[in-house]
């Protein structure tokens, strides 16, 4: 049975860090009304609030695209870097060396991570950079108005693109084979699960990938629908085209899913996604099992959600480098410039 529900509001209290939820918020969103990305931003706010993490202990990063705009919409008190298309991982990698006590939150999209940024995506996994890597995955390029992304399913029809002839990239499988130490998948319309997985990801030391299916209300839709972008475009004056936003409600599950449950969810474009929660008793420490589940999901056209894999034994990137306890960006000249006598030693090493 399919369901479509509006999003619930949030309450404001003080957490153990003495902060209100407001202290975790960002600027008002400029994404489309009903965009799943906004729901994810809200869950980031809630998760950090509930975990009593001060915003100053986090750095946020993104690449380019609708999803990569979203760090503006949470954690105003956190340093952020909206970098280049697909290049967020390298920026985060370098920045997190400056203070190994801080956590990174990277927000990317499927266009950002699965195409132009596929290389950096995979290398940030194998390096086990201490960050939560969220892919807000909608199968389509939003900012450039509706092209297929690399995660779009084969056979998907888009108005200007026709039919997608290629097999999709699966973010979670790519993360798994790249030796990511935490891999999870969720659905933006399942805020409770998103929040819980975010908390687990934030608590994980190392790279935590969260592939969150977040339907695009504007472009990945049915072209002849009354409220579709295509219809609007055909019926609006060009002057209004840029500001035209399809009024949509965010897709939210009515009821939390049970372990092992399979449920169909209607998308804005009229298609249906089959969500399947991981079984009770599933062992997320077994990478082989995770890959098997992913393969099974692919064959059945399921969207398996939950924590697919976790490995808590591998050192993070900054651990490997055996850094001093003081954050590197707090070191002074006395720590960094060798003693005067060392210059003679160096010169003696030359011929």
């Amino acid at each position, binding site marked *: 049975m399919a369901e479509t529900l509006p999003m619930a509001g949030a309450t404001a209290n003080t957490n153990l860090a003495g902060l209100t939820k407001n202290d975790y918020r960002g600027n008002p969103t400029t994404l489309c009304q009903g965009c799943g990305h906004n729901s994810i931003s809200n869950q980031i706010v809630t998760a950090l609030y509930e975990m009593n993490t001060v915003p100053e202990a986090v750095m946020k990063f993104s690449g380019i695209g609708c999803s990569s705009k979203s760090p503006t919409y949470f954690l105003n008190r956190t340093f952020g870097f909206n970098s280049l298309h697909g*290049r967020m*991982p390298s920026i985060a990698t370098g920045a997190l060396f400056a203070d190994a006590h801080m956590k990174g939150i990277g927000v990317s999209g499927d266009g950002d991570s699965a195409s132009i940024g596929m290389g950096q995506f995979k290398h940030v996994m194998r390096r086990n950079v201490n960050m939560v890597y969220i892919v807000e995955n909608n199968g389509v390029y939003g900012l450039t108005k509706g092209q297929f992304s690399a995660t779009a399913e084969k056979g998907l029809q888009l108005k200007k693109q026709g039919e997608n002839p290629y097999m999709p990239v699966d973010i979670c499988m790519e993360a798994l084979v790249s030796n990511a130490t935490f891999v999870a998948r969720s659905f933006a319309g399942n805020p409770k699960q998103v929040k819980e997985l975010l908390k687990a990801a934030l608590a994980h030391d190392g790279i935590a990938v969260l592939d969150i299916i977040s339907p695009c209300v504007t472009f990945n839709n049915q072209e002849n629908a009354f409220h579709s972008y295509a219809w609007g475009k055909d019926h609006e004056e060009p002057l209004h085209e840029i500001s035209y936003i399809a009024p949509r409600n965010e897709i939210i599950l009515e009821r939390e899913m049970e372990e092992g449950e399979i449920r169909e969810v209607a998308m804005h474009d009229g298609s249906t996604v089959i969500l399947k929660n991981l079984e009770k008793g599933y062992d997320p420490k077994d990478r082989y099992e995770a890959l098997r589940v992913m393969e099974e999901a692919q064959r059945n056209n399921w969207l398996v959600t939950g924590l697919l894999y976790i490995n808590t034994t591998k050192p993070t990137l900054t651990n490997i480098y055996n850094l001093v306890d003081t954050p590197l960006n707090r070191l002074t000249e006395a720590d960094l410039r060798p003693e005067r006598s060392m210059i003679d030693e160096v010169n003696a090493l030359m011929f």
Partner: protein
Amino acid sequence: MNRKVNDFSITVGTKNGSGSSTANNTILRSIFKMGIPVSGKNLFPSNIQGLPTWYTIRVNKDGFIARHEANDIVIAMNPDSFARDLVSVSPGGAFFYADDIRQPITRADITIHPMPIKTIVRNDPNVPTDFRDLVGNMVYVGILAQMIGIDMEKILAALTFHFKGKQKPVDMNFNALKAGAEWAKDNLEKKDPFHLESMDKTDGLIMADGNTAAAIGSIFGGVQFAGWYPITPASSLAESLNDFLPVLRKREDGKHTYAVVQAEDELAALGMAIGAGWAGLRSMTSTSGPGLSLMTEFAGLAYYAEVPVVIWDVQRIGPSTGLPTRTSQGDLTFTHFIGHGDSHSVILLPGDVGECFDFGWQSFDIAERAQTPVFVLSDLDMGMNQWMSKPFQYPETPMDRGKILTEQDLEGLKGNWARYLDKDGDGIPYRTLPGNKHPMSAYFTRGTGHDENARYTEESDVYIRNMERLKVKYYNAANYMPKPVTHPLKGAKVGILAYGSTENAILEAQHQLDIDHGIQADFMRVRAIPFTDEVTKFIENYDQVFVVEMNRDGQMHQILLTEYPQFAMKFKSVAYHDGLPAAAKWVREGILAKYTRTEGEKQKKASAAKTAVKAKAAKPSKKAAVKSSTKAKKPVTKSRTSAKAKKK
């Protein structure tokens, strides 16, 4: 025959991968330790094993140690280059070759010495079979040493240095070398004029390559993060960081104050470095032209987002893959304007190994002060070859970390600050660093349009204000960029303007132009862009300014035309690029080809020509010899008498 003492060139032709570098470095280092000015240049192909490769050594008592285009002594070890090596010997020169190469020898104007290298090695019971080929290279060193007079003690010092004091390889190589020397003593007759005699002109100097110097300089500059990706000729810079950081920044607790990460590609290398620079680390990367191409997008981001980072570009010949192992100064305009839209890069132009060290640390000060990427343009010749240098000098100025606001600063400001506000009127705003715990410290960095508070905006007036401020910031950087180095010449009426590793060639050409052609030129080596006031004043002084550089299109010339349109008619481009290190010949000939004589000079020249016809084989005039002793500042020598003048 006239003796030519401490003034000749040696070229060794071998096969890539034949292990000759130890042998060639031994020749170079032992001559250096004899106190004789010397340089060595490895002219190698992009190949692991088998293609022809050359090592060329210039010995010059007067300190002119640019690559010499003529080969006085050639040692031919490679059948594949034998014929061209033979042709390359200067008339009156000497040709040594491995006697197992059986090819026709057609020269009667040079001394020919076959060398039974294989026999000598085979007869040496101390050489294991596996090492015969490698040690065979030492035999030619021994033969050469015997024939030109390389001091055996200095050779031993060079080998001991090379093998880091390990006795076994030192002995094995030295024995083979001695066997070669013994054989030469017993079997060869000295017919060529080339001799070495000990001097004191390298006292107090060291020998190093630019990449090592750059790495060590960066360490003294407090480098904390380096992201890099392997590329010739830049790799040894990052590898040297790995070698020296654990030595120079060793701590009692065994922890590290730095990280060097080999990235997956150049994009990630610079991305990581920018991330680290943004977050407050002294951060760098090193690459060469093709890598820089890949880094372009990030360079534009760092420029506009105002992130300090140092980018070493050890230039090789382009475009595209170009000649991967050949030197060039071809990345100048590319670097100057790197990034799409309007951008201007701060560029440092080291000219020798000592400056690679100095700019290693100074580049961080400039990057952090200006909050912008700083490009340091070295080249293959400077980066990978061994150069004589003054010892590295300890940085005498404290680190300049630029305008960084701490928690206390923000408290004082009551949190009232704006990331991109030009508070001081110098175009440089204040920044805060991640980890700053003040609730008002954070800002959001982006490559898209932003206002003074780092907020996204596409407002035209804000964009213009921001871009104009960046320009102010850029030109203000001239106030703290390294000033040019000048080599003036008495009575100079024209100027030579150049940069980078061409200095030795230009100093020699400057001398030749003076002595042989009566053209006195002042020489200025520019060390930074934006140009400092000294550059402007220099150009103002002359009607002709020859802009000398190693690229096809005269890239510095192009930039000068843009920056100094009022002087456009003065500039004369002398650009040349063949992938080989600069030689005096092309500088001299390039300038002569474009030199415009004044009416007075033309008349003088005509009357001089008449005099010359009358006294054809006249000896050099006293006047010319006196003139030469008042010459320009020398790089390493105490005095530079004119061999050319004497010859005349």
